């Protein structure tokens, strides 16, 4: 089997449009939350979201390109461009055929879909623009990355709600590890903030009215986000041969399904996914120093995830630092796992654990070290990134400090 390293990161987030801006903001504990500006709120109760602010498509694409790119694909292509640039890879000369692009999205081109429905159902338009279908399809971000950068190997989208990006990175990891491909672009993108979708989220009664405070007493739910992140995965030998800067190593991937409740989290499914990732990585539980939690800030998730962490790590659970970066960037759904994987890679490389912000006081049912309100300097040997989706679909990635 091949070792799989990370040689590029790209991020479009509510905390900036580059991986560096994103990471610096996470370490500083900055908030990406604010009042909605990109959708009408007069019929909503939502007062806070984590939008990707100041994203000007014209700064990244020409008019013709924008015509075929929904916001979800724009985010994905910008993140991929940064990741590829950092990796130094060129996909000409046959490498494109040996490279995969697996990009998750929970929803796809929702703003395009919304605009079309408004125009046709509400305004009674007799005709609609011709490119709605290829802009809307959930695989559009993967296709656009393929076309922009010449990726000609296995290319597809994975849609597993809030675990989409983690499933995508995990599948890409397995493809590179098995030797099926030499490199992979993997991650997720989401841009589903429209009035009607936010209304639908409100109907689930899990949205925080104020802010997201994962694992804290008095937490009131989640804050919706958006964005994209893309990782360049590469066979270690290939990266070494071209003297690439190796940012980290991905060593394991575990999946499970709850086969239970549609939306209620299940500690058994979570535990099985974390155990599967540890087994896939051949890591003992006590080798893990950090877990980037799913940590949505809902009452149910955070208690359940804490139970699952106790079951997985037993006596070692209290030694592990656990944080939820959703406290700063909100829940980007199908992009969340990629944003969090990028944070984990940076955390391991920098020896810095990003905080769980907005933490007020301990909840007796959440009794682990959540790195409240301030980043901690601490070496990380290995870390997990958790994603637990609606529908009971769980995906956990394991990363290790690259030691050569």
């Amino acid at each position, binding site marked *: 089997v091949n070792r799989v390293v990370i040689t590029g990161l790209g991020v479009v987030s509510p905390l900036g449009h580059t991986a560096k801006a994103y990471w610096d903001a996470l370490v500083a504990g900055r908030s990406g939350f604010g009042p909605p500006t990109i959708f009408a709120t007069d019929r909503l109760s939502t007062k806070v979201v984590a939008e990707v602010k100041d994203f000007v498509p014209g700064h990244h694409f020409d008019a*013709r390109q924008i*015509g*075929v790119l929904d916001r979800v694909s724009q985010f994905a292509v910008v993140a991929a461009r940064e990741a590829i640039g950092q990796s130094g890879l060129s996909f000409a000369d046959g490498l494109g055929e040996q490279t995969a692009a697996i990009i998750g999205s929970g929803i796809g081109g929702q703003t395009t879909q919304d605009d079309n429905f408004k125009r046709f159902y509400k305004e009674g338009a007799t*005709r609609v*623009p*011709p*490119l709605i279908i*290829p802009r809307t399809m959930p695989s559009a971000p993967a296709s656009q990355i393929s076309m922009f950068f010449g990726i000609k190997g296995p290319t597809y989208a994975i849609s597993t709600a809030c675990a989409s990006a983690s499933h995508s990175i995990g599948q890409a990891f397995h493809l590179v590890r098995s030797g099926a491909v030499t490199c992979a672009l993997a991650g997720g993108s989401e841009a589903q903030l429209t009035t009607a979708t936010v209304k639908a989220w409100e109907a689930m009664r899990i949205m925080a009215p104020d802010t997201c405070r994962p694992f804290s007493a008095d937490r009131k739910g989640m804050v919706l986000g958006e964005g994209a992140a893309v990782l360049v995965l590469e066979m270690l030998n290939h990266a070494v041969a071209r003297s690439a800067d190796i940012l980290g190593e991905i060593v394991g991937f575990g999946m499970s399904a709850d086969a239970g409740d549609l939306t209620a989290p299940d500690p058994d499914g979570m535990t099985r996914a974390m155990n599967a990732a540890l087994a896939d990585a051949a890591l003992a539980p006590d080798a893990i120093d950090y877990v980037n939690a799913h940590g949505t800030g809902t009452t149910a998730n955070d208690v359940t995830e804490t139970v699952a962490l106790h079951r997985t790590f037993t006596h070692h659970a209290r030694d592990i630092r656990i944080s939820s970066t959703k406290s700063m960037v909100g829940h980007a759904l199908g992009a969340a796992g990629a944003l969090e994987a990028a944070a984990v890679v940076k955390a391991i490389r920098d020896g810095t654990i990003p905080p769980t912000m907005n933490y007020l006081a301990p909840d007796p049912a959440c009794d682990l070290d959540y790195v409240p309100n301030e980043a901690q300097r601490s070496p990380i040997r290995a870390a997990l990134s958790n994603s637990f989706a609606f529908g009971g679909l769980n995906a956990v990635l394991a990363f290790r400090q690259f030691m050569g």
Partner: protein
Amino acid sequence: MADVASGVIEIIASKARDKSDPIKLSDRLDSFGLDSLDVLEITFSVEEKFNIEIPFNANRPFEFTTVAQLVEAIERLLSQKTAPA
């Protein structure tokens, strides 16, 4: 009718990749480097501009060779629309 020609030429020019400026009525439609999506978008823009329905289906061979033929077809659709019932 000159309005139709200039309107069509303006729409094609907005999408043409290989532009022989200025676009002339005698230019071949396949000389502009248009891809499949450009053709769809030009069709949509023409329908919007002249408020007509073009019975164009991408499964059938494109029946117009030159800009002039396209303009004539649009003029025919416009005259049908204004003709008394």
